[in-house]
């Protein structure tokens, strides 16, 4: 198998926002390079998705691949999210390694039956005899009045489901490494990317590498408060940590990287050190990732807490369209700073 020779990149842990080697690449190009290398390395890999071969190329992340590998391996699909997920799963069960691409996370509810009832359960239901090496990519949109049905961020729904792996890279380095890991691991994996990260640059090794699921990263070390984020919010937290540092407050920033499996140990060890926890999720609060992180701490480090846990999440309503509403819908850097100061 072409994947065994790729070493898992445990050096990823503890690194700063990008890897320490490689070229500067955008998040978008890191994903594209990952797809390109997966297609190159493994004839079982193919890509499917609505319009993935069009001139937009899924916000640029699939550009040129149809030309390079042909439309037999980089395949446009009908608009039929549940059916296409089933098709991809059927192919995955029978020897292929598809990557199914959705332009927005909002379309995943259409595919929930296949995601939850089939992909996630198949390996277990067959006693381990038939796995589903399917990678699903989906992108979170935001802003410009995209409103209720085009700016959701539904990782928590999937993180609830045993049998799925759910990763949310914050950096170009992780985007490529997690994509390759998803394909290589053979586990059904949902990789959720944020559109606002696509232009972000970072160091990305040229050769293929894997960033294992379930290992978070310390993006900044600190002693007085633990700030937990993922995907886009990691960057807000880093900015907040900088501002706090300027005011003499030392914040540690964790990047969960994957929400299922979840790196409980990393969270616990940080909170045991700092005694304070602020979680900034991309999404709603109730029964979300932020709840899970808080719960893990309440279970394993309640005695270390020196102040209440705080969660910064979307307002508990659908995304409104108008700009002033939209602005107040999303928590920002200043909310983090204010929140931390309120705890100290």
């Amino acid at each position: 198998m072409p994947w065994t020779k790729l070493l898992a990149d445990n050096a990823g842990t503890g690194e700063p926002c990008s890897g320490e080697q490689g070229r500067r690449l955008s998040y978008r190009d890191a994903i594209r390079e990952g797809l390109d290398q997966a297609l190159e390395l493994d004839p079982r890999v193919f890509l499917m998705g609505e319009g993935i071969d069009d001139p937009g190329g899924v916000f640029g992340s699939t550009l040129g691949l149809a030309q390079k590998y042909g439309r037999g391996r980089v395949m446009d699909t009908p608009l039929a999210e549940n059916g296409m997920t089933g098709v991809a799963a059927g192919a995955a069960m029978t020897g292929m390694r598809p990557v199914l691409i959705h332009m927005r996370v909002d379309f995943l509810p259409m595919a929930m039956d296949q995601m939850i009832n089939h992909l996630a359960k198949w390996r277990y239901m067959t006693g381990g005899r038939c796995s589903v090496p399917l990678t699903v990519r989906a992108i979170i949109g935001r802003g410009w009045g995209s409103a209720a049905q085009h700016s959701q961020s539904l990782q928590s729904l999937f993180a609830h489901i045993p049998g799925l792996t759910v990763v949310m890279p914050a950096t170009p380095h992780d985007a490529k490494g997690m994509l390759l890991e998803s394909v290589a691991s053979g586990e059904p994996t949902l990789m959720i990317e944020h559109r606002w990260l696509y232009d972000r640059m970072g160091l990305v090794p040229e050769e293929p590498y894997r960033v294992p699921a379930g290992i978070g990263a310390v993006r900044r070390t600190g002693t007085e408060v633990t700030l937990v984020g993922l995907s886009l919010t990691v960057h807000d937290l880093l900015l907040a940590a900088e501002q706090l540092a300027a005011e003499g407050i030392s914040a540690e920033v964790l990047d969960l990287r994957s929400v299922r499996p979840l790196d409980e140990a990393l969270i616990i060890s940080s909170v045991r050190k700092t005694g304070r926890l602020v979680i900034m999720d991309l999404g709603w609060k109730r029964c979300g990732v932020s709840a899970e992180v808080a719960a893990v701490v309440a279970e394993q480090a309640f005695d270390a807490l020196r102040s209440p846990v705080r969660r910064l999440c979307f307002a508990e309503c659908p995304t409104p369209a108008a700009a002033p509403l939209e602005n107040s819908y999303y928590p920002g850097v200043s909310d983090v700073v204010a929140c931390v100061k309120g705890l100290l």
Partner: protein
Amino acid sequence: MTPQSDLNLETLLSLYRTMLRIRRFEERIVDLYPRQGIRTPVHLCIGQEGIPAGLCDFLRREDYIFSTHRSHGHCIAKGMSMRVIAAELHGQEEGCSRGRGGSMHLCDPEWGIPGSTAIVGGSIPLAVGAALSARMQNNGRIAVAFFGDGASEEGSFHESLNFAALHSLPVVFACENNLYATSSPLEARQPPAGIAAKGAGYGIPAVVVDGNDVIAVYHAAGEAVARARRGEGPTLLEFRTWRWKGHVGPGCDLAAGCRPAGEHAEWLARCPLEFLGSRLREVGCGEELAALEGIVAAEIDDAFAYGQGGTEPDPAGILNDLDGRG
């Protein structure tokens, strides 16, 4: 008047006027968009105006339509105020959904528009449900589902046809087949059998109609609506058409290579307004048309002045309207 039509002039002028209102409304969006006062994605239907115009002419105010991401034309044709649409595009409290919905969720329950959905395929079962509701309330209303060729690939299309046929519901399935879903051509997504061909599988009468010929649309729609009103059940109409602008936004997607230039030229030559306009001019209605331009321009000016002059929503009310409790 023309051989193609036994319609009276009044009807033809009314159809033209509807198309013109849609066209000029969207052209105004194109003009204004770069100023960034409209901060919401717009899916324009320029080039497709014949379908809403021809179909909605048969609808009463209380009949229902359910629309999609590409809804301006449907809502204008149904009779909704251009003022509240413009206000919604500008994210104002005066907008139809008070700035909550933006461009993709236009609604006006008082005009039979419970709402629009930007989830492809979502509008279809909702319209079937409205038809069921009308039947149960015995209120004589009918429902129209607007959707695109892409939507006809979604499972909801099949589920909706099945249920509507089973109960002979008063619903018209109006598929605007503009040959693309975003930039994916129809033939990359469907076998050649065609969308109307699906009807037979459910015993639903179905026809392919030239969507750029508003008179053809009018005739086909008239029959479908009459069937629904007579309690004879659903009809599937596949309108062939083409959008002139890109999938989203005010620009054309030609330069980006999204669609072939030849195709573009061909469809521009088949402008639905020009199609009817040239015939109207032939029979001496040139002055009426010119007058209409003026009237419509004034309406559009008024609508956008209203829309731009509205009130910004107060962030303090962000949680309002989530439910009826709060």
